[in-house]
């Protein structure tokens, strides 16, 4: 019999995937568990193992084409099985069309608003005509992509089709790709806070079909914003928009902020950093692990902050998995420190450092990105002193570390001293907890942070 | 063509000693033997190509005797086996060139008979007719410029080469500057298949000398003694600041141009046979015998020695290794071969 293979869902909330490369050609035999197609999504890319042993009869999705998860992408004739009527061949392709015509509700609704598409050839303006336009756009963009552009696009994981070419006849130039690459994080900062742990939040590139190994992650990038023109949406932006709206509409946000004196914490960290760097062979000791430590302790004291709203009721998470928002040159990813409550500061430092390193090397896998229960965002690294983060769907809250600034403050004994002050902002899902709990959580977090240092055991 | 004096008459030896006369004869025998060996090896399939200078023996042996080793320079052409031997190249070196072995002076790069040896004062040359003549003139200029008295350049070519523009330009330049050089034309009447009457409008090359204002002479190139006399006089004039001389030595090319040529397509056996009567080797042999400079036994012994020497040289040379593929890339420029830096 024939088995129809559908686009797998690689990671929670991922709604679509792109066939990066067919590792098997129609007619070739494939062993069960043998990788036969490479798929890249918003966040990751993976080789998909065959579910059965047999012959790849038909490929239903072209390389470079993006389809909704669950869309049939190939048919494998199992060993010994008689060849099926080509209904199998045609039906799935109809499924592709259907899937494209009727994507998941929220995305449809949300993107429809912000989707004018003057550069139809370069991008898919609306999910409705997504699949077919990707192909058209792909061809149009790639036909004019110079070797340098292809190479840079690969290096920076840029979707050439998404760019507005500044070259002759709208050709995407190498400079366009570089500009886009530089704009990537900047463009992402706004939503970064909010979509931190949202695995579907940032866009995955659709790599040229010629490309052998599309790296993980991705970004939403733009050419020069030209006044009076509409910048076309790419896949990533659509999904970001969709997630923001979804979260903001479904979870009533409450917000609060405390001011924390981290003078001693800072001293402690300064004291420990060189030794740590040396011991760990060059890992950097940042403020982040101290902060996460404080957060997980507070979460232990306020378990409702480590929960999520469901129609059945409020589900309190067993584990404490902390998502860390990491801004990359062209992207923002939110890998998860699993069981953060079981790690010392040093353990957290190592774990987070490793995740950051993995992220920078595009080595994050599905596991690294899955399972977050609460999110920490070191937003202060961007100089921000206050922000109203948007909660990620399926969590109760998110806290940000804002920028640490030296300020004259009145101390307990009414003296005025120069202290290193840092704001901590919290957004919470009001359906899960109320202000009472939230302010308790914040006060607890503040107390723990101010109690840290100037000495201690990592 | 004047025949060499034979028995009875006194031998005009142009100051050559018995020993020198024997050396000339030895050179002639060796030359013919090596020519013959080249053709043999070619027919055996051991070497792809050989050139014959048969008929040039007396001319070359005589001219070589006038050459001052270690002082004069020789700029020959590719039919000068006898000259090369006469100024010091060994049969072994000749065979290395025939076999194109790594030990050859040119590392097996050049055609056979394209010898060059700085030690022997033998200038490197190509197969391009007359291309070496300006080089010889340049060398002569260098001698004159450095005030090197007692040195001269002997440059040879065939009759066909005199039609080349570079021949004219070179002789003209040498005559303007009165350079220490002797232009020796080995007129064998044939340029591959082109006879002298298709080569020039009148058959006497030496007559061109007047047009350049230099002395010109013609002599019997089948007679090594007469040849020596003419070349020696011209070289002495050159060495003593008397300027260039144009010499025309008359000889004949008995064999085809090369192993790749069939001369019966353009000349008759009768013509060749007619010239055979003047073959310089037996002719000079008779002279030496008649004047008791050598006995018949000496001659036989000499011929055996020459053959043995040739055989030994052949075996030795054949046993030597070829250049390696890597040698293709050496000696293009000083240092590495890099079109791109």
């Amino acid at each position: 019999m024939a088995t129809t293979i559908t686009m797998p869902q690689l990671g929670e909330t991922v709604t679509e995937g792109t066939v990066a490369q067919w590792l098997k050609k129609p007619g070739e035999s494939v062993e069960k568990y043998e990788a036969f197609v490479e798929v890249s999504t918003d966040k990751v890319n993976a080789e998909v193992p065959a579910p059965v042993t047999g012959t790849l009869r038909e490929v239903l999705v072209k390389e470079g084409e993006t389809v909704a998860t669950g869309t049939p992408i190939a048919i494998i004739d199992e060993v010994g099985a008689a060849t099926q009527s080509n209904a199998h061949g045609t039906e799935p392709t109809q499924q592709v069309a259907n899937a494209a015509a009727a994507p998941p509700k929220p995305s449809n609704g949300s993107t429809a608003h912000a989707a004018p598409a003057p550069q139809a050839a370069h991008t898919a303006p609306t999910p409705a005509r997504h699949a077919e336009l990707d192909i058209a756009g792909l061809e149009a963009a790639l036909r004019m992509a110079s070797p340098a552009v292809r190479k840079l696009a690969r290096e920076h994981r840029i979707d050439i089709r998404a760019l507005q070419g500044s070259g002759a006849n709208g050709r995407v130039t190498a400079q366009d790709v570089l500009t886009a690459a530089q704009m990537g994080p900047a463009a992402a900062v706004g939503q970064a806070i909010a979509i931190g742990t949202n695995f579907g939040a940032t866009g995955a590139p659709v790599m040229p079909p010629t490309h052998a190994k599309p790296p993980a992650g991705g970004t939403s990038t733009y050419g020069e914003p030209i006044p009076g023109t509409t910048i076309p949406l790419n896949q990533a932006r659509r999904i970001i928009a969709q997630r923001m709206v979804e979260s903001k509409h479904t979870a009533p946000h409450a917000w609060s902020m405390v001011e924390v004196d981290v003078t001693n914490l800072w001293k402690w960290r300064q004291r420990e950093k060189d030794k740590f760097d040396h011991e760990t062979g060059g890992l950097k000791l940042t403020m982040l692990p101290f902060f996460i430590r404080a957060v997980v302790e507070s979460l232990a004291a306020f378990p409702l902050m480590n929960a999520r709203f469901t129609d059945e009721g409020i589900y309190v998470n067993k584990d404490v998995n902390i998502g860390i928002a990491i801004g990359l040159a062209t992207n923002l990813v939110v890998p998860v420190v699993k069981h953060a409550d079981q790690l010392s500061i040093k353990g957290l430092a190592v774990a987070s450092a490793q995740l950051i390193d993995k992220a920078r090397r595009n080595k994050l896998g599905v596991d690294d990105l899955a399972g977050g229960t609460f999110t920490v965002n070191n937003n202060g690294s961007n100089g921000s002193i206050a922000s109203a983060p948007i909660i990620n769907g399926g969590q109760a809250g998110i806290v940000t570390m804002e920028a640490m600034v030296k300020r004259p403050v009145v101390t307990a004994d009414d003296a005025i001293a120069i202290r290193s002050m840092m704001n901590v902002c919290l957004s919470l899902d009001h359906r899960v907890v109320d202000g009472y709990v939230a302010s308790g959580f914040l006060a607890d977090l503040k107390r723990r942070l101010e109690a840290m240092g100037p000495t201690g055991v990592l | 063509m004047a025949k060499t004096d034979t028995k009875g008459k006194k031998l005009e030896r142009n100051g050559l000693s018995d020993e020198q006369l024997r050396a000339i004869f030895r050179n002639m025998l060796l030359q013919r033997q090596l020519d013959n060996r080249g053709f043999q090896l070619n027919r055996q399939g051991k070497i792809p190509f050989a050139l014959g200078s048969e008929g040039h023996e007396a001319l070359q042996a005589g001219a070589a005797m006038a050459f001052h080793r270690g002082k004069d320079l020789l700029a020959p052409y590719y039919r000068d086996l006898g000259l090369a031997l006469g100024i010091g190249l060994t049969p072994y070196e000749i065979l290395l060139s025939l076999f194109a072995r790594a030990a050859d002076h040119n590392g097996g790069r050049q055609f056979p008979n394209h010898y060059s040896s700085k030690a022997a004062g033998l200038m490197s040359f190509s197969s391009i007719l007359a291309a070496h003549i300006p080089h010889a003139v340049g060398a002569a200029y260098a001698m004159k410029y450095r005030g090197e008295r007692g040195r001269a350049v002997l440059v040879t070519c065939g009759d066909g080469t005199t039609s080349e523009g570079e021949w004219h330009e070179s002789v003209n330049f040498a005559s303007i500057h009165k350079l220490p050089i002797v232009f020796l034309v080995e007129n064998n009447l044939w340029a591959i298949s082109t006879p002298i009457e298709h080569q020039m409008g009148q058959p006497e090359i030496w007559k061109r000398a007047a047009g350049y204002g230099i002395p010109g002479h013609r002599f019997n190139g089948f007679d090594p003694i007469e040849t020596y006399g003419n070349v020696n006089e011209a070289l002495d004039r050159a060495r003593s600041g008397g300027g260039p001389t144009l010499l025309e030595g008359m000889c004949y090319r008995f064999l085809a141009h090369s192993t790749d040529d069939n001369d019966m397509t353009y000349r008759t056996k009768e013509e060749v046979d007619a010239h055979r009567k003047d073959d310089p080797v037996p002719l000079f042999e008779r002279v030496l015998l008649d004047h008791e400079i050598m006995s018949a036994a000496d001659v036989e012994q000499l011929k055996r020695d020459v053959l043995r020497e040739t055989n030994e040289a052949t075996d030795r040379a054949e046993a030597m290794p070829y250049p390696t593929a890597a040698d293709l890339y050496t000696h293009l420029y000083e240092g590495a071969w890099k079109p791109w830096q």
Partner: protein
Amino acid sequence: MAVSSPTQTTQLMNNVDAVRATLYDAMKNDPRTVILGEDVGARGNVFLITKDFAKEFGPQRVIDTPIAEASIVGIAVGMAMEGLRPIAEIQFADFIYPAFNQIVGEAAKTRYRSNGEYTCPLVIRTPYGGGVRGALSHSVSIEALFYHVPGLKILAPAFPADVKGLLNAAIDDPDPVLFLEHKKTYRLIKGEVPDGHYTIPIGKANVLKEGTQLSVVSYGLYVHWALEAAQQLEAEGISVEVIDLRSIRPMDRTTILQSVEKTRKLLIVHEDNKFGGIGAEISAMVAEEALFSLDAPIRRHCAPDVPAMGYAEPLEHEYMSSPAKIADAMRELARF
């Protein structure tokens, strides 16, 4: 200029002065040096480059040859084989063809065919190039005819200081060097030239102007025009890098590749005609070595494929490029 350094004293020279000064030093410092060519002696060369040399060094070292180019080079080859350092002059590059065999067949092969036993340290100087109303026989570029030849080195400096440094290098070089002097630059181009003896390494290009958006590789007269055009474009906000090859064989791969990898666009500009010209080799090399740096097709801005420029002004004008034409070529490629 690559060679200038603040500590050095310099003199303002044009290219004629630079050639003359260098030849003069060579004659002064090395008695092996001789100059031969048509009208190099009494007349001091038709451009007066060797003016008064014959008076100072004598007719034996400054040789007025008959009108016979093949032997001018051929005799120089023989001189070089026998220990002189001849500098042969072909009065105009257009006259070099009779000497083709001596240059390609003899000089370039001497070392090789004798397996290193004989060498040919020879410099052949010749004025080339147009823009001087030289018509069909006093304005050709010949470099493409010779740069195919292993065993030969070819230099074409454009600036007085390079002329001196490279002519010195050519004279010191142990192998035959064809030294091309663009006759229009002879008196047009002036520059500071360091005093004393110095050489510029053969095979080293010179980045005249750094830029980020477009690399322009040229040599000879057009280097000056390319520079002028690049400055125009700078004002328009287009940043052009200009490379002066200086040495045509061997050629400076590294400098070209580094530039192309930076700017991702390559424009080759030369006065010689396009088909099979220097630009063809550069294009092929860059395509082989730096394909993935290219953000646009390699472009060549060269003379049209006609035998030479006509005498009449409009014909020469049509044949020759200009800073404006080069600037247009730059703009077009920058826009791509």
